[in-house]
């Protein structure tokens, strides 16, 4: 019962869809934009931030009249838990909910496109889709940009391009990324080497929780470093090529471990499955690590009847805010571990 309810609030990226889902979990494109003649949010007065929000709201209302439904929500109107859930759905950044005053988010119907208002830049337009859909995500963000741009004057410089608060985003203001699952490469100790090769071609590698975080569950985020001096197509192509190579390497590694150490892999996968299906207490970190092993097991068809969106669904329901939403009340961390284990058991043993 709760599973159906939880599935109703799954964001677009956590559902089925996209290509190469055995390795690529989600694709994201982000565009940073600012309004002309107004200070950037980090250096703006309250009055300026209000003015930004007013202009954006006006534009959104005009777009809504002609196009698909868009919803603008002010952060200060949301209870803390709902804000936390937006972060866990990856629709807004953690920084965006810290100081909610004059900050907002614009969402489309299926929540695949979200635009933060007054984060580090006046507008942060992002699209996240499941699987390898980098060009689809880029197109979706680009379309939202076009809609806003028809109604708003952007800060733009002929030579420098779109002007952003941080010079690392200047130019196209574009950051594209893929979230990839590389368990076999990490089993054969090849991730470090591969990932450092990526930085040689202008790509950034981070753990699942962003800058400087550990790659829990062998999940990595790969994104472009440079945004100026190349076209959007070039940035996109560079990431697509690298992503295709990563997928290829991971698949080769999976073949190799199945060929050379089948029993060890099976053991690892079934142990993880055993713990997830029986544990009475689970921290989110442990849940993620074990789910990573189980996902490998389903992709390799060691565990036959499991769907492969599994990892994302588990990832989603086990994050603290969502978990509390599903259970319907606030809980202490210890209590959360107990309920997390309960939900995971339900998900892993669907026939029970």
């Amino acid at each position, binding site marked *: 019962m709760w599973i159906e309810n939880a599935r109703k609030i799954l964001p677009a990226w956590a559902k089925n869809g996209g290509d190469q889902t055995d390795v690529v979990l989600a694709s994201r494109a982000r565009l940073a934009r*600012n309004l*002309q*003649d*107004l*200070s*950037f949010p*980090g*250096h703006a007065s309250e009055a300026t931030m209000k003015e930004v929000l007013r202009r954006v709201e006006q534009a959104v209302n005009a777009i809504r009249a002609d196009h698909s439904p868009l919803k603008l929500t002010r952060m200060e109107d949301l209870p803390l838990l709902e804000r936390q859930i937006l972060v866990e759905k990856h629709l807004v950044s953690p920084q965006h909910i810290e100081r909610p005053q004059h900050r907002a988010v614009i969402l489309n119907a299926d929540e695949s496109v979200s635009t933060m208002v007054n984060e*580090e830049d006046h507008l942060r337009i992002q699209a996240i889709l499941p699987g390898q859909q980098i060009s689809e995500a880029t197109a979706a963000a*680009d379309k939202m*940009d076009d809609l806003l*741009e*028809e109604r*708003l*004057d*952007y*800060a*733009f*410089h*002929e*030579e*420098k*391009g*779109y*002007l*952003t*608060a*941080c*010079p*690392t985003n*200047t*130019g*196209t203001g*574009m950051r594209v990324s893929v979230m990839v699952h590389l368990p076999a490469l990490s089993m054969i100790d090849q991730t470090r080497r591969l990932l450092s090769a990526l930085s040689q071609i*202008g790509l950034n590698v981070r753990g699942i929780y962003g800058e400087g975080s*550990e790659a829990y569950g062998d999940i990595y985020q790969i994104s472009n470093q*440079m*945004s*100026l*001096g*190349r*076209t*959007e197509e070039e*940035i996109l192509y560079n990431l697509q090529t690298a992503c295709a190579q990563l997928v290829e390497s991971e698949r080769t590694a999976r073949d190799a471990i199945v060929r050379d150490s089948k029993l060890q892999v099976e053991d690892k996968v079934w142990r993880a499955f055993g713990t997830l299906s029986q544990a009475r207490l689970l921290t989110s970190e442990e849940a993620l690590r074990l789910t990573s092993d189980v996902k490998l097991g389903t992709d390799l068809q060691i565990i036959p009847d499991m769907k492969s969106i599994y990892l994302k669904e588990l990832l989603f329901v086990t994050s603290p805010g969502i978990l509390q939403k599903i259970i319907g009340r606030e809980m202490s961390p210890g209590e959360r571990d107990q309920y997390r284990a309960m939900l995971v058991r339900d998900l892993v043993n669907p026939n029970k």
Partner: protein
Amino acid sequence: MLCEECHKRQAVVHFTKIVNNEKTDYHFCEECARQKSEELGLIMKPHYTMQNFFTGLLGADTENVFVTQPDYDTYKCNSCGLTFTDFRRTGRLGCGSCYEAFNDSLDPLLRRMHGASKHTGKVPKRTGGTLRVRHEIEALRGKLAEAIRMEEYEQAARLRDQIRELEKDQA
């Protein structure tokens, strides 16, 4: 691998000590390594932050770029009031006009970050001026050259007409 000191965090500092042909391996997390750095004779760099990163990038050419503006506090954007000192501290600019105000220092910084300092991507319709059309003409010229090289003269003629049309609009 977990840190051998706290047994909690991931070990990220791996260190081999050889004394009198006796080899000892250490595996610490960053925090424990920092605490033990003196005892082990390790030199740990201060925490890596965005701020250090910028200061580092900017500092590298302080000598030649800032000669004319040695006083960072008076070097500021007249539009939003941000001083260059503020920028060095936060790594964030205050408004669009800062790009003009600090152009002399920003240009080399952008070049170092992006390997380029000239935008070649998307141009907004409302505030992009004629740049959008100029980019389009440039792209068409490229296609025209390609068509001529492939001896596709009908296609080339069509492209030439398109370019003329766009140029006429601009004039």
